[in-house]
């Protein structure tokens, strides 16, 4: 796919829409679009992965492996969402696995190249990291709400405090 076309796609996705066009152009040059079929694994829990993904269409599920229970589905994500933050922020060892639950299109960007981009253009880097922080903070809040088990019959006794 042409870089221009890809930049156009990035401008449409909620995660990247607010980033400056110029930076997106450079990001587009380093990215590809990949189609994943329903049931296909994007990356595995615990694997090493060097890509950050933005969902263009379809839906992915994040799953964690629990011995004896198999893959437990934690969260589903749809168009405009980011997947694979461990590649960019961590050491590339994934804290959950991602699997397509519908045929999906994802924009794939190399985390190494993204880091270089951020280093070279700190303003772009700041905005990108702000988007990462925003997405992760929403997921953190969502996880806390899950932890509260609000719909349980008896109010849950799970402590509601959690370190930030």
């Amino acid at each position, binding site marked *: 796919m042409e870089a221009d076309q890809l930049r156009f796609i990035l401008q449409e996705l909620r995660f990247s829409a607010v980033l400056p066009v110029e930076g997106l152009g450079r990001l587009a040059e380093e990215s590809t679009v990949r189609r994943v079929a329903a049931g296909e694994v994007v990356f595995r829990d615990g694997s090493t992965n060097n890509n950050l993904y933005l969902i263009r269409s379809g839906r992915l599920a994040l799953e964690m492996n629990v011995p004896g229970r198999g893959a437990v*589905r*934690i969260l*589903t994500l749809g168009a405009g969402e980011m997947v694979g933050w461990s590649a960019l922020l961590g050491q590339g060892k994934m804290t959950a696995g991602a699997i397509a639950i519908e045929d999906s299109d994802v924009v794939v960007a190399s985390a190494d190249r993204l880091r270089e981009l951020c280093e070279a253009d700190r303003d772009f880097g700041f905005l990108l990291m702000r988007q990462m922080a925003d997405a992760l903070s*929403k997921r953190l809040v*969502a996880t806390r709400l899950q932890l509260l088990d609000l*719909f349980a*019959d008896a109010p849950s006794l799970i402590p509601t405090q959690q370190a930030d």
Partner: protein
Amino acid sequence: MSDGYASRMPTPEAAARPWQTHTVAIRDVRREVEGVSTYDLAFLDDTVREAYRFAPGQFNMLYLPGAGEIAISVSDDPRNTEAYGHTIRVAGNVTRTLAGLGVGETLGLRGPFGTSWPLSECIGRDVVIVCGGIGLAPLRPAICTLLQDRQQFGRLNLLYGARSSDTLLFEREYDDWSRQGMDVQTTVDRSSPGWLGNVGVVTLLLDQLPSFDPHNTVLMCCGPEVMMKFTVMAALNSGLSEQQIWVSMERNMQCAVGLCGHCQLGPTFICKDGPVFRYDKIAPFIDVEGL
């Protein structure tokens, strides 16, 4: 038409005798999910039946002599006037006693009470309904009305979260609702094998909602208070104002008519100023712990 959506005020007769309970008989009981059933209640007295009308979001006080009286929202299509569905979760003493009753048995009903969903405000606007758990029940009459007068409204979105896939209320109706022009999205806190739907809390669905115009939207929300708080945060984040958001609140109620003092939240009485509030009316109070 818009007037037809307004809350029902008490008749002079009811206003003068707030404690008058009417006999209703259980016409049908449908098990919805584990611990939740819908009871269709019909008035025995013809005069009472003819006078009774409710607006979506209003509630009744259901009375089981000896056990007690509880506030329950009507979950039925307002066009049904023969019997009124009430969708009730077994929570304690009264609801457990009710669960032991069957078709034909009688109980007491006072109502309807409280404010209703702002359906006339929805005309010409997009509508987003966000609810959790049993919170879908008080919104079902609103959904029926929105779909009945479908052409009056913009895009309709229902975002519904439940604990797990086997606790989703009214699941058999989602296809109908979709066919009639409402986008229905569900999500569960806990995934189970075979569930291909969304996992995660309902606020995330709101964050991901692609098609609504924040400046021309009415959002209605009902569920556990914490869930509503975070839904409101997400809605404000996506550009809605407090004046576009409506929530349905819950507090202990003894009289349901503003005379017993139990249901106060700041300056409001949930029973008569609510249960449905425009968010800006309670925003200063809802976050204060123990108010």
